[in-house]
């Protein structure tokens, strides 16, 4: 990271609202994501969690409200403008570039590559090659970090669903993000891969990356996330520490089942 690390929340959302026709999927959500936290975002199916992510990440335009990243207003910026600003996200259903190798999926990501323009690719071959060698080393290291090193040359469409989730994390990491939004990273991932994923997330978090994680698995949330935000029917219904979440009878009833 270059420059002074800004203080204050890494993300702040104010009055964020999204309508789909007459239906309000997200309803004036305001929240701050604490820098270097692993914030858990929970809520029943259809609560508006993914819609909220999509608005923060620029994939959906908000009907109302604002989003600030590291203190700068990013409301309405298109999704492609945010990666270079340090915001990365993964998808609930993994979206690998299927007919590209795992390595190419990762090599793609760094912003502003010389060879990424027509002129650069045709005429700045030397600079492109030097840069490509550096990117390749970094991509190899990141693939090893998420335990996909051995699959580098496989088509990304042919790896397992859990590996695709790791691949999405690897792609995100190529941009040296300050904040990563993970949409159900552990869903459908076998326990050993899920353990790897959690270890990597915690390791990155130690190095200063902030995370917002949508997750249905309460055990996962209670163990690895703090603070916790709960959405229901598009509204924030709970915001607090894990301890507070565990002590909240309504939340327990709604999301953990009365048996808990």
């Amino acid at each position, binding site marked *: 990271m270059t420059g002074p690390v800004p203080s204050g929340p890494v993300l702040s959302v104010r009055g964020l609202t999204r309508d789909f026709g007459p239906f309000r999927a997200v309803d004036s959500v305001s929240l701050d994501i604490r820098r270097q936290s692993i914030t858990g975002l929970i809520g029943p199916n259809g609560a508006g969690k993914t819609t909220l992510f999509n608005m923060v990440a620029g994939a959906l335009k908000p009907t109302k409200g604002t989003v600030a990243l590291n203190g700068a207003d990013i409301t309405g910026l298109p999704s492609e403008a945010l990666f270079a600003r340090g915001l990365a996200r993964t998808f609930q259903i993994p979206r690998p*570039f299927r007919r590209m*190798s795992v390595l190419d999926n990762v090599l793609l990501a760094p912003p502003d590559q*010389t060879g*990424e323009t*027509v002129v650069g*690719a045709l005429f700045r071959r030397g600079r492109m090659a030097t840069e490509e060698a550096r990117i390749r080393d970094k991509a190899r290291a990141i693939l090893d970090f998420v335990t996909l090193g051995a699959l580098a040359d496989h088509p990304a469409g042919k790896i397992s669903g859990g590996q695709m989730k790791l691949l999405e994390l690897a792609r995100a990491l190529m941009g040296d993000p300050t904040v990563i939004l993970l949409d159900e990273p552990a869903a459908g991932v076998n326990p050993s891969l899920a353990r790897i994923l959690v270890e990597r997330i915690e390791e990155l978090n130690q190095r200063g990356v902030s995370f917002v994680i949508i997750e249905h698995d309460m055990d996962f949330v209670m163990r690895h996330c703090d603070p916790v935000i709960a959405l229901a029917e598009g509204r924030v219904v709970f915001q607090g520490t894990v301890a507070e979440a565990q002590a909240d009878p309504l939340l327990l009833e709604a999301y953990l089942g009365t048996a808990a």
Partner: protein
Amino acid sequence: MIGVISYLVFFATMAGILAIVVLGLNLQWGYTGLFNGGVAAFFGAGAYVTMLLGGRPEPGQFGGFLAPFPVAIVGGILFAGLIAWFFGVLTLRLRHDYLAIATFGVAIALESVARNAEWLTGGAKGLRGFPRPLEATITALGGGDNFLYGLFFLALVLAVLAAVYVGLERLTRSPYGRALRAIREDEAAARSLGKNPVRLRLESFVIGSMIMGAAGGLYVAFYAYVGPQDLAPILTFQVWAMLIVGGAGNNRGAVLGAFLIWAAWTASGFALAALAPQAMQLYTGPIQYILIGSVIVGMLLWRPQGILPEQIRQQGRN
């Protein structure tokens, strides 16, 4: 013997020109997933403008500026690019199928202009009379025989083909090609990684169309003629068949497909002319269509990736 060789030179020249068109389509469809349903429009646009700029003046006819061939063909290339840019800007932000519909429409519209705007395009009879590059000099060298010029022109076409091939290989095996493939595979994911799909699609579409325009310019110089049938959907159809058979997303496949399908097309034409009963001679064109159509369908069923499939890894080694 010399007749056979002459014919082979003629065949290879036309196949080479078509291979350039297929390479243009491969950039658009193979690498970027852009469905161009009006290949003939961009080829024809290049051909007509090259003719207007570089052709001989005719009384009552616009054009015929006798521009040197390189100037004329560059004009044709730029015009093809301009049309692509215009329709690209209009449609590439929209759903994918709009581009297919728009390009199809452009080809129909241009064909209609070519047929009707006589002052500009010569109408149904087209435009003829094009001073081919270096023709006088080279024919004189060959002792007045035009065989040598045929060879020269083939070499010219193959040189352009090689240049286009090398340029596209560089482009598609670079981070640029990686970004094109990524937006083809999954636009939302590519955007989340900072890639701008509108810019990339527009560039790919315009460059591909300019390559088609260049092929059109060579075609005009080869035949010294251009007419409305050069804008007809049959060309679009043939070029698609070439790309599907050769292998979309593989530049070598695109060139191979062009030569194979052009060989099959000409051979089926000969065979039908020689073998089909008199009463059916009128229908050899439609029969060729059906044959090529069957090749496309068969290929899509049994080997959809083409003879030389796209490589998963961008470089040979990683």
